[in-house]
């Protein structure tokens, strides 16, 4: 008997993990871990800029010509179904969803009850919604999995764009109704999903649908309502210094609704790592980076004269940033002559393991989303005042961190002419007002992996393309039931070949 009935040695099971509240937290923590793999999972790389910046006219691939050719394929819309970043994004997001489903199911079944349990389910559903939104934007409608699948249940087919969006909304709404406000968390819990984060993502998801899915049943009023709720919660405000927004001092600060959290780490491989490769990918090849994601001159020209945000967004050869005079090896190892200043940080101990949090949604976005809702709802004055508040903050920005050699973490004052970034005209309305908002979004969020999605939902994407890239992109569009066509990436090959998922057009 003893020989045959073995109790697993030192092994936790789902039942044992969720049987008490302190351990259940550990299960929910692991969902965040998987969500952070969109930044780096140690095997492939699928950072959000590979889609949000790179596919737009804000950025070129960078590095040397042939380095990481899968990115070239993404940029040119010539990926094959084996494309690694696309596949890894798909796999990592479904890993997040799986962990969330395990947590949700086991928490619902657990015999203990407390506010904590409600919150944990809320966090899990927030992350599930977050992951499905990530997938929706890259692939369109995807298989909807809402509980851990047994082997015999693994025959799910893709749902529609609208069905996927509906699931995202229901998860985020649940999170909205159960999660605490940011200020209600203990300091040791900073970084967990909040009510504000859920509402911010709801506004973003609805706005994305307004520009893409017909008949989503949403109006701009919904965007207005969610952003209003955030604004009136008084939990958030614009962070004083734009230049410091992406640096450590502002992490989880007053402007932050949701960030993927990182910390410098020794381990450079596997789930155990807690740092990100985001920075080594984008850092200067002449210092300690690989030089990807190069901001374009097209983006540069979008900035108004003397806008302090330009220097905080991109730097060129000869500029000093993080205390180092940067020499960029253009054109041999750079595509545009520029690098992403928002990813420029002081060199971490392990270059592949930097601790810079990746900002996912911040208060300026809430203001500009609401401004866009205002503009659609006819509240032009409200829209303009929000745009102006964002511009006012930008004017006060210092120079980017470390513009003096040797003073890596200091912020030098910026002296700019007094007419820089003037308030926009109070008479703007209609398309002109929308254009002003979109312009503001592009410069405010430059190199923050948002521009591509803005181009899609505003119907402006295809006009930024030309030549064979446009030809290629036109073969990959989801067009039925959409206002604006949505170009999509290939569903990973094995999902199509072995599990009969419908492939996206043109792959």
């Amino acid at each position, binding site marked *: 008997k003893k020989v045959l009935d073995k109790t697993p040695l030192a092994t936790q099971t789902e039942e044992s993990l969720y049987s008490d509240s302190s351990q259940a937290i550990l299960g929910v923590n692991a969902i965040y871990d998987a969500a952070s793999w969109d930044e780096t999972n140690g095997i492939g790389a699928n950072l959000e800029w590979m889609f949000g910046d790179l596919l737009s006219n804000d950025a070129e691939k960078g590095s040397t010509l042939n380095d990481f050719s899968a990115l070239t394929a993404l940029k040119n819309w010539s990926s094959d179904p084996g494309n690694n970043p696309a596949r890894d994004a798909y796999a990592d997001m479904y890993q997040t969803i799986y962990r969330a489903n395990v947590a949700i199911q086991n928490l619902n079944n657990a015999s203990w009850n407390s506010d904590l349990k409600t919150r944990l389910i809320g966090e899990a559903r927030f992350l599930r919604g977050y992951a499905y939104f990530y997938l929706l934007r890259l692939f369109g409608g995807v*298989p909807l999995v809402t509980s851990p699948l047994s082997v015999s249940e693994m025959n799910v087919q893709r749902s529609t764009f609208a069905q996927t969006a509906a699931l995202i909304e229901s998860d985020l709404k649940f999170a909205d109704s159960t999660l605490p406000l940011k200020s209600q968390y203990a300091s040791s819990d900073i970084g967990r999903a909040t009510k504000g984060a859920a509402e911010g993502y709801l506004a973003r998801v609805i706005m994305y649908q307004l520009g893409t899915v017909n008949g989503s049943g949403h109006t701009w009023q919904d965007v207005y309502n969610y952003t209003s709720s955030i604004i009136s919660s008084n939990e958030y405000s614009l962070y004083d210094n734009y230049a410091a927004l992406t640096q450590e001092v502002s992490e989880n600060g007053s402007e932050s609704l949701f960030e993927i959290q990182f910390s410098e780490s020794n381990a450079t491989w596997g789930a155990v790592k807690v740092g990100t490769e985001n920075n080594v990918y984008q850092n200067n090849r002449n210092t300690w980076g690989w030089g990807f994601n190069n901001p374009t001159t097209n983006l540069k020209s979008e900035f108004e004269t003397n806008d302090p945000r330009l220097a905080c967004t991109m730097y060129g050869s000869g500029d000093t940033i993080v205390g180092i005079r940067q020499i960029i090896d253009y054109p041999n190892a750079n595509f545009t002559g520029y690098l992403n200043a928002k990813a420029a940080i002081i060199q971490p101990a392990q270059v592949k393991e930097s601790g810079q949090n990746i900002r996912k949604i911040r208060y300026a976005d809430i203001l500009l989303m609401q401004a866009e809702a205002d503009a659609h709802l006819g509240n032009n004055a409200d829209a303009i005042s929000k745009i102006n508040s964002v511009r006012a903050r930008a004017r006060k920005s210092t120079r980017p961190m470390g513009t003096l050699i040797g003073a890596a973490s200091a912020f030098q004052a910026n002296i700019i002419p007094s007419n820089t970034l003037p308030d926009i005209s109070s008479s703007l309305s209609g398309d002109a007002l929308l254009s002003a908002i979109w312009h503001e979004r592009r410069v405010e969020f430059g190199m923050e992996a948002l521009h591509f999605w803005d181009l899609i939902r505003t119907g402006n994407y295809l006009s930024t393309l030309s030549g064979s890239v446009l030809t290629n992109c036109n073969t990959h569009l989801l067009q039925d039931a959409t206002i604006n066509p949505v170009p999509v990436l290939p569903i990973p090959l094995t999902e199509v070949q072995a599990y009969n998922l419908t492939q996206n057009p043109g792959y």
Partner: protein
Amino acid sequence: GAIFAFSQSSFAQEHKLSGSVKDDKGKPLAGVVILDKDSVEVGKTDKLGNFTIANNLAANSNLIFKMSGMENESLNLNPTDSILKIVMSSVQKDNNLQEVIVVGYGSSSKKDLTGAIATVGAKQISQMATSDPMQAIQGRVAGVQIVSNSGEPGSGVQVKIRGTGSVGGSNPIYVVDGYQTTDISYLAPADIQSMNVLKDASAAAIYGARGANGVIVITTKSGKKGPIKVTFDSYTGTQSAWRKIPMTNSQQYATLVEEGYTNDGLSVPSNISGKLDSAKNGLLGTGTDWQDEVLRTGLIQNYTIGLSGGNEVNTFRLSGTYFDQNGIVKNSMMKKYFFNLSDQFKVNNWLRGGFNASFAHYDKTNYNGDLYGGVLTNALSAEPLAPVKTADGNWGRPGISYANNPARVANEIKGNHTYGTMLIGNIWLEATLAKGLKFKSQFNAGTNNLHTVTYLPEFYIDVVEQRSQSSLYDLKAEENNWLWTNYFTYNKNVGRHSFDFMAGAEWQDFTHTQTDIMAYDVPSDENLRDIYNAQNTSYTVNPNNTALPDYSRGLQSFFGRFSYNYAGRYMFTATLRDDASSKFLKGNRSGMFPAFSGAWVISDESFFHANSLFSYLKMRAGWGIVGNEQSPNAYPYISSIGNNNLYVFGNSVVQGYAPTTFGNTELKWEKNKQYNLGIDLNMFSDRLTFSADAFLRRTVDLILPVPVPLYSGAPASPSMNTGTMENKGIEISLGYSGGHKFKYNISGNATFLSNKLTSLGLGDVMSLGSTGKLGYINRAEPNMPFPYIFGLKTDGVFHTQQEVNSYVNSAGTLIQPNAKPGDVKFVDTNGDGSITNDDAVNLGNAIPKIQFGLNAQFNYQNFDLSLFFQGVTGNKIINAMDYNIMSVSNESGGWNNFRTDRMDRWTAENPNSNEPRMTVTDANGNMKFSDRYVENGSYLRLKVVQFGYNFPENTLSKWKLSSLRIYLAADNLFTLTGYKGFDPEVNGYYQDPGYTGIDVGGYPQARALRVGINLGL
């Protein structure tokens, strides 16, 4: 072989014969039986080997001298003969029908076997320079495929008996003097007396749940009655790589790289153009030969000392072996010690017993064979322009290829060791309870301790090639197991009917525990390299996130066998075993494994006697079911949760727990149904032996880690009983021995095998073998071999623009719109008018159609020569390293060095070449996985050649030695192959069945030249 008879005339009146019989070393032979022409015994030799035959013998009569273990001598008498001097030589034949074969819980003579069993003897096992007994018998046995994991010292081998029967575990189990184990690395080749390979179910089914992949029954050497004998065996020699891959020198390299840019109308980037120009102009000479920088000639040596002896009551054997090998990659090495003690004693006339204890300890380095970070992969990829070290003494940086400095990587081997200590022992008692009835009980216990230390130093060459923190990984693992076996045997003879019964029970238990820690900022001083000296206070426990690092499992078995034998002519055996394993949940725990087999010795039939050509003929047939207990892990039924899914809250790292395995509560035994038909045939008085078996192995309820859709998010593939696999084949062994003064023995074996997966579970195909940027290159699919190579077909290159233009589809558009002359022409296999993934097809597989071994042995006077060839044919190898070294562009990340074959690339001046042109952008996708990476894996290798000299008797007696032989030997002296990688003996990447046949520039087999000595006191 017979030597000759010595005759001498005498003047005696009566025809009375006398004489003496000696062996070929001049020792008198006692007990030799002398028969006349009617097979009537006419005499026998005495203790001094002398005989007298009293009977009068007719003139021209025929005498036969017979003794077991010796060749029969026959002699035509001359009428004048009176004193005979007979010299008999020992048997050289492999196929000794009386040989005792250990079959599991008993033994049988070879003549009475009903199953497919092959035997390898001590002599063959100790012929090669290796510490691994299985490597030593590679190619020796039909139906047994042995492939070295690599040429790295101590890397082990993969053994497959009759093909790949399972995905989860295809290694056979070993039964060493009754102890069942999957690891025999504690055994020195010199301690092995014989290995019997139980190939079919009828032979292996007595091991039931563990028999699916065949069973190798090993008998270790034991002491014999008599005065104490001491033997000393040793060899020493050097090893070196049998081949280097011809790579371009710096001038050729620069020419190819520059051409890439020129062909695309691009200018060479300024950061490399200067270097390339000076290389092209010959200013850098030939450059660095990185293979020379990481390879070396290494010393190999082995010493074995053995002591044995005993008396009526007690016999013993004691041995020790020291093996020391310096690998052919710099800094790689293994040192290994073995000790073995065995003892057998008689308590009284009904009780006897014995014990056996083995101890082994080794220290081996772990070679880095990674596709990106490995020693040899980098040695091939690094450009010849980079120096090993720069003027300031730092490592040079291969900054054009972006390879790591190979010499630096090879240097890191020093800090990467595994230490293993194994202690295995058993004790047994056997009681004779009544006439024919015996009871045996044996208790075995083993412990295996493993300690791995991996130190990676801090260094800085440039941004990419640097390590900002030193790290130390420390793993300590311990496995303990015990096995208790009890069984009765009963033998009864009634007239010519013989009955054998055996019944028993067995319990086995394993426990594995380990601790592994990663620490940082550890001093580089070798004596301080310890986690206790880590300056960084953060440690990671279980950094590799191993699922279920600790486990315990057990087996309970009941088994029985019934054998019936009529007059040694008709035999029948039935076995039944019931196994229960802790790996399965209650309802599925037990497995019943029956087997039946029979044999008919046709040559013993009266109607056959007349035939003098055939001396022996036997037919065998068998059927049985065996289980594969290796396939699932220890707890396949639970979904376990693992730690270390770390995240950050409030700027502090927090622990995260997530599922790591995906349990299946319904898992049950994977079973193998096997059919065997065999024939054994001897001709010319057993000089020619022939044996053939045809087999069919059908694996059902295959336990597969079923790949699940990515959308399930399952952290690991769940194990499921799904799919069936089939292996069928024919095995042939043939041997001939003959000669008189010049004796020879030639034997060979061949296996013809085909494998296919007959069905598969969820999902119709599995993509396997993801290899770097080539992606998935192997595949599993019903009705195809497992696995097979899946990729695009090519048809050379486009030689002219016209060829590009004329490659159009039905609509008239170009099938390869981006192609230029010199680009690869892909075959549009599905005819859809474009080249896509859908054009991928079967490109062959890594399973050899034929595997063979050929052994030749020659003796002349005191000299002996043996040659052993081994080879395979009909298999394919994916030369994945070619992605790096046969590249047409720098798509892999940088400009890797090239195999010199690239010098024949297509150019306008060399338009007939089928080697693609150089291009930076590779718009045509020449680098994509295609049959360009697939090569014929056939090879013929002279594994061992040994030339020895036995010192004659008179010298030996002068030196007071009982035997002395010295020899020269060479291992892997030559290899005939068309394969262009380091070595055609490719097991596969990661030792994962999905990666079968994928070569990423693995550690090649070494060629060894040795001198050796075998000494007996």
